[in-house]
């Protein structure tokens, strides 16, 4: 019996891989890997510069804790479960252990590899900056154990019945791991081990408190759907794919913008698209990308990489990704019946969408250019001025025409 469930698990994994393969090919054809490679090369140049001119006061504890915490804490679990499994697989809940084991192996292996890569990058910095560094093998082994414990705790979290309690416990786990890693990088190993033991007991105690499901079906199904949605949202930037229902977040810090739009007949589609952009994963992704871009540009500005042209190139790269992401708005409501029902001229649909996409790209661009302008203070005038000027011309003149044309073409197809 267990074997057939394992077979089903493997079948579903293979089916998903087969399903995304064509989109993966589209992504490769789009030139995205080249862009990624460019980012890696730029990153390596920055990393090399940092190692060469290593600052004496490098904040290795803060940097190490920030980069290692997500890799140690993040414990995704792909179970390939479908909503219908509540009806069909639930009677076999006692056999689901085999599938879970396979799911953990599927996720933990890449997780440990990612952690290893991060350590490979961080250790040279750590060994240069720390006055009395631990042996690298001990450090890696300790982090691997903490990652394993995090994965176990994440399973207990998933079992918690109340969403509020589950989120609180997860937040607590991330905070405690953050402090444990900070301690690991700054004090003797035996002290860290004692502290870690204390935290493990604390977590064990906390995890005992809330009511739990023996097998969190709904949680795992929701998680699986979210993961699939992420894949599709990502591939949707490169190809036309059937979209899964979008996950929605309230985001009051952004959605007030839609409320400020004037109540008018010709603003109908704009109102809809602004809310869609701000409340779906697209909005979250754009916020994260802009913030990350600002940080990377700021760091590149500080290192005056290639006389300011490094920062300018990073600004262009981030703007290009933001433009691609914002354009994914065209996947939304493509087949909505209301487009044929609302008493609105058809051209308003595409025009409003273009305006929303161009304005979004412009706003994100303005945010990216803030750290870029710091180059002016260093006397580097041309890189920021040329890049901002060219980007503005593109966003204001070329992008709207290009996007409208693309929409019209997709409509004809």
């Amino acid at each position, binding site marked *: 019996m267990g074997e057939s469930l394992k077979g089903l698990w493997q079948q579903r994994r293979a089916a998903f891989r087969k399903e995304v393969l064509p989109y993966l090919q589209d992504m490769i054809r789009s030139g995205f890997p080249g862009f990624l490679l460019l980012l890696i090369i730029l990153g390596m140049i920055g990393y090399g510069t940092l190692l060469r001119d290593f600052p004496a006061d490098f904040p290795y504890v803060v940097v190490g804790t920030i980069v290692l915490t997500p890799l140690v804490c993040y414990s995704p679990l792909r179970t390939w479960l479908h909503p219908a499994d509540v009806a069909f697989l639930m009677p076999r809940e006692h056999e689901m252990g085999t599938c879970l084991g396979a799911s953990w192996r599927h996720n933990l292996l890449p997780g440990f590899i990612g952690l290893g890569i991060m350590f490979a990058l961080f250790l040279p910095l750590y060994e240069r900056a720390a006055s009395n560094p631990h042996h690298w093998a001990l450090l890696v082994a300790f982090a691997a154990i903490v990652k394993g414990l995090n994965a176990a705790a994440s399973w207990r979290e998933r079992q918690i019945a109340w969403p509020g309690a589950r989120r609180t416990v997860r937040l607590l786990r991330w905070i405690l791991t953050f402090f444990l890693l900070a301690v690991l990088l700054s004090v003797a190993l035996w002290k860290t081990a004692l502290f870690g033991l204390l935290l493990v007991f604390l977590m064990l105690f906390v995890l005992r408190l809330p009511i739990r499901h023996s097998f969190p079906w709904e949680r795992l199904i929701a998680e699986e759907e979210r993961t699939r949605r992420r894949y599709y949202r990502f591939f949707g930037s490169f190809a036309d794919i059937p979209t899964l*229902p*979008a996950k*929605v977040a*309230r985001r009051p810090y952004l959605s007030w913008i*839609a409320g400020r739009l004037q*109540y*008018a*007949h010709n*603003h*109908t589609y704009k*109102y*809809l698209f602004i*809310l*869609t952009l701000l*409340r*779906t994963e697209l909005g979250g992704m754009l916020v994260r990308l802009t913030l990350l871009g600002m940080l990377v540009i700021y760091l590149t500005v500080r290192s005056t990489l290639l006389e300011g042209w490094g920062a300018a190139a990073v600004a262009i790269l981030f703007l290009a990704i933001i433009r691609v992401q914002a354009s994914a708005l065209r996947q939304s*409501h493509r087949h*909505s*019946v*209301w487009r*044929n*029902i*609302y*008493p*609105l*001229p058809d051209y308003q649909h595409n025009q409003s969408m273009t305006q929303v996409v161009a304005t979004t790209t412009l706003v994100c661009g303005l945010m990216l250019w803030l750290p870029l302008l710091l180059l002016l203070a260093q006397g580097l005038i041309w890189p920021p001025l040329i890049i901002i000027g060219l980007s503005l011309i593109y966003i204001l003149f070329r992008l709207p025409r290009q996007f409208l044309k693309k929409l019209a073409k997709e409509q004809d197809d």
Partner: protein
Amino acid sequence: MEPVLRVDGLTGGYSPRRPVLHDIHFDIKPGEMVGLIGLNGAGKSTTIKHILGLMKPLKGEIRIRGTTLEQDPQRYRSSFAYVPESPVLFDEMTVQEHLRLTGMAYDVDADRFEQRSEQLLEEFHMIPKRTAFSGHLSKGMKQKVMIMNALLPEPPLYIIDEPFLGLDPLGIRSLLERLVEVKNSGAAILMSSHILATVEMYCDRFLVLHRGKMVAQGNLEQVREQSGDRTASLEEAFYRLVTGGDGDGRVT
């Protein structure tokens, strides 16, 4: 009186070789509530899709307020509100935002919109849910939101497909009361439903579709007469019409 909706010789379907609807004729006048009834697959939803303009007729013509969709799409579309069988809402929008979107789309005056939306939220007991995302509502509540959005612009024609699905008794009562009100104010209503007792009680006329053909139409008396039983209830008359009284035959 000039009809709000006139369907003239409508033949249509998903393929020219296999039409689903055959030569359908009917009209609806202002202040009339008309029930569209038929078995599953009789062609009710296809008829509605043709009226909405989601499907093109193979033959025949559909006019709303005297115009076809091709002649004046704006006037045609602004003349009706539609409630689909399954609620079709935007997951990322709250109940209140849906009303605002509808108000904008149908060009409802801003002051009127404020007043109407508050009134509808209250009547449908949705004030506590005004800021809830549509995706987080129960099916019945979603249907209420659809109905509220249809009622907001006060169009001359309402096209309502299976409105009672998922509604609780309070919701059904609010809807029927509101439909009677809009009817009394001069609007026309085309309502498709399987709940024949309710349709019989509230509708002025009935359209009985069977296998894509109009097998009977008119008021209760006329439908009874066409079914061959002058004392039958709508349900009994309907049963006779679609089974021929002996199972599956067609009654003309």
